[in-house]
C-alpha cells in the first residue's frame, strides 16, 4: 500500500529525514518509535502534504501512485489520514459542518454520492456510540476550547468517520490519561481491517500495550535503524533509545 524509498526531507534548510525506507501493507499496523528530533512528525507531515517540507531525494508510492505530487485534499480523498499531534483550533467553524463538508468533499472527489443530513447524522451517531463520545462534541467549533484529551479524541472520531485506508497517528498518545489512551486504542482496534493500514508514531511503548503492532521501527537521526516485531517496543521501553545506538555502534565495529 505504502512504499517509502530512501526519503530525504529538508525543513527550513535542515535535513531531517536522511534516507528513510519503509513498506506498509494493507491490514498491517506499524509503530514508528524514536527519540525527540528523530524526524517522526516530519514523516507524518510529509505524507499528509504539509507545506514547508522539501523532499530532496527518494519516493513515496501509495497504491501505485506518487503520493508526493498530490495536494493534501487529494491525498485525503485517496484515503490518507493524519491524526495531528497538535490538532488546530478553528473558532467559528462548527464541528458537524466541518465533518460533513470533509466527508462529502472526499466522496465527491472519489465520484461517490454526497450524504444528505440524515444519512450523515446516522453515520455520526454510529461512530460516536462505538467511541463512547458525547454528541456535545459536535455542536462546538472545531477543537476550539477543547482540552488536550478532547482534541485527541476528536482526531480519532474523525478517523472513525472518514474511514481512511492509511491512518497515520502522530503522537496521538502524548498528553493522554490512561482512560483517554484506552479510548484511542479501542478506536484504532475497532477499525483494524484487512484493507486498512496504520502507522502509529509514538514516543512511548505504553500505547502499544493496547494497539499491538505487526511491526515496530526505530527512527533515529532521520532513518530507520532497527525493525522488529512487537517485542522490539518492549525492549526499547526497558533499555531506552541509547540501547539502539549502542547496538549500532557495536554492529559497525
Amino acid at each position: 500500500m505504502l512504499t517509502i524509498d530512501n526519503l530525504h526531507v529538508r525543513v527550513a534548510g535542515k535535513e531531517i529525514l536522511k534516507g528513510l525506507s519503509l513498506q506498509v501493507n494493507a491490514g498491517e499496523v506499524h509503530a514508528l518509535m524514536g527519540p525527540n528530533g528523530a524526524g517522526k512528525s516530519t514523516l507524518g507531515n510529509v505524507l499528509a502534504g504539509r507545506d514547508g517540507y522539501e523532499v530532496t531525494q527518494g519516493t513515496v508510492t501509495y497504491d501505485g501512485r506518487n503520493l508526493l505530487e498530490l495536494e493534501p485534499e487529494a491525498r485525503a480523498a485517496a484515503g490518507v489520514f493524519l491524526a495531528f499531534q497538535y490538532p488546530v483550533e478553528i473558532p467559528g467553524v462548527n464541528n458537524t459542518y466541518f465533518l460533513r463538508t470533509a466527508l462529502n468533499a472526499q466522496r465527491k472527489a472519489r465520484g461517490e454520492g454526497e450524504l444528505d443530513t440524515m444519512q450523515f447524522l446516522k453515520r455520526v451517531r454510529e461512530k460516536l456510540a462505538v467511541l463512547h463520545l458525547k454528541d456535545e462534541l459536535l455542536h462546538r467549533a472545531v477543537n476550539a476550547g477543547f482540552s488536550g484529551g478532547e482534541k485527541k479524541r476528536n482526531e480519532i472520531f474523525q478517523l472513525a468517520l472518514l474511514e481512511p485506508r492509511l491512518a497515520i497517528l502522530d503522537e496521538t498518545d502524548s498528553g493522554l490519561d490512561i482512560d483517554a489512551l484506552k479510548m484511542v486504542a479501542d478506536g484504532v482496534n475497532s477499525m483494524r481491517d484487512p484493507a486498512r493500514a496504520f502507522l502509529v508514531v509514538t514516543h512511548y511503548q505504553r500505547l502499544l500495550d493496547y494497539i499491538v503492532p505487526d511491526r515496530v521501527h526505530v527512527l533515529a537521526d532521520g532513518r530507520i535503524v532497527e525493525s522488529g516485531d512487537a517485542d522490539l517496543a518492549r525492549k526499547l521501553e526497558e533499555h531506552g533509545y541509547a540501547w539502539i545506538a549502542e547496538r549500532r555502534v557495536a554492529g559497525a565495529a
Partner: protein
Amino acid sequence: MATPLFDELARGDAVQRAESWRYSRNALRALSQLDFAPAAASAAPAAPLRAQYEWPQTQGHRLVFVNGRFVPALSDPPGPGCRIEQGADGCTLQLVAAGALAHVVHVALPGAGATRWQARLQLVASAPGTRLIEQHVAAEGADVLGVFDFDLALAERAGLELVSLGDLPGNASLLRRTTATLAREAQLHATHAVFGGRLQRLELGVAIAGDRARLRSRGVFVLRGREHADLQLDIGHAARDSSCEVLWRGVADQRARGIFHGGITVEAGADGTDAQLSNKNLLLSALAEIDTKPALVIHADEVKAAHGATVGQIDERALFYLRSRGITLAAARRMLVAAFCAEALAGIDDAGVREQLAQRAAAHLPAPEAGA
C-alpha cells in the same frame, strides 16, 4: 432636498483636505471625475433585486425607498408601534412600542449615465426592544452614487437593535453619515455589514449622552476586486457609567482596500466609562490593503478602556488542517473567512436575520471552486 453631507461633498476641497478622508482621497477623487446627474424617479426594482431584501423575517414591515425617495406603493403599511412621516427634509420614522420593527430598504437603480441620489432619515426610538433593519441594494449598470444621512435618537431607557447592510455591486457607491444619540439608560446594539461597492464610506458617530447608556457596535466589511470601504467610528462618552463594546472585522481580497478608524473619546466627567474596542482584519491577497487605527482619547478618571487592532493573513495551520481532511483549498479558505466574519454577525439576535446577512456575506467571499 440638499443634505448637509451632500453639500460637503459638493465643496470637494474641504472633504479632500479632511484627515478622515486620508485613505479614501483617491477613491473619492476618481469618483468625482464622473458627472453625476440627479437620479430620475424610477420604475419598480426587478425581481433579482427584490429577492435581496424580501426577507420572510421582515414581511409586513418593509419601507422601500427608490433612488432616495420613499415609495409607499412598494412598501408595507407601517407596522404596530411604527410611524413614518415624510417632511420637506426627509423622512421621520418613529418606533414607539416594544417589538416595533421596520425594515428600511434603499434601492439604487442606475440610469443611462452616472447618477446620484440623496436621502435623509430621522429615527426616534422611544421604547425598549425596538428593531430597525437598514439595507442598501443597487442594480448593476452605470455608476450610481448615494448619499445618506441617518440620525437616530434613542430616548431614555429605549432599546434599539440596528442591523445595517450595505451590499452593493461594483458600480454603486454609498456615502453614509449615521449619527446616534443615546439618552439615559438607552441601549443601542448595532451590527453593520459592508459588502462590496465601488466606494462605501460609513461615518458612524454615537453620542453617549445619558448616564448608564450602552452601545454595542459590531460590524464587518468584505471586499474584493477594486472595492473600497471606509469605516469611520466616532464614539463620544459624555455621561457617567456608560459603556461601549466595539467589535469589527474586515476582509479584503484581490486589490480591495479597507479602512477602519475606531475613535472613542471619553469626556471629562464621564467617570465609570467602560470602552472596549477590537478590530481584526484579514488580507486574502498580497495586493489588498487594510488600514486600521483605533484612537482612544480619555479625559476622565476611573475609566476602563481596552483596544486591539490586527491585520493578518489566513491561518495556514487551519488551512492545512481542513485540507488534510479532504476539503479543497478554495472551500477551506472560504470556510475560514466565513468563520472570521461570523463573530461580527453573532450579535444579531434574530437567527433568521443573522442568516440573511451570513448568506449575503457568502456572496462576497472567495468563490468555493475558484483556483488557488
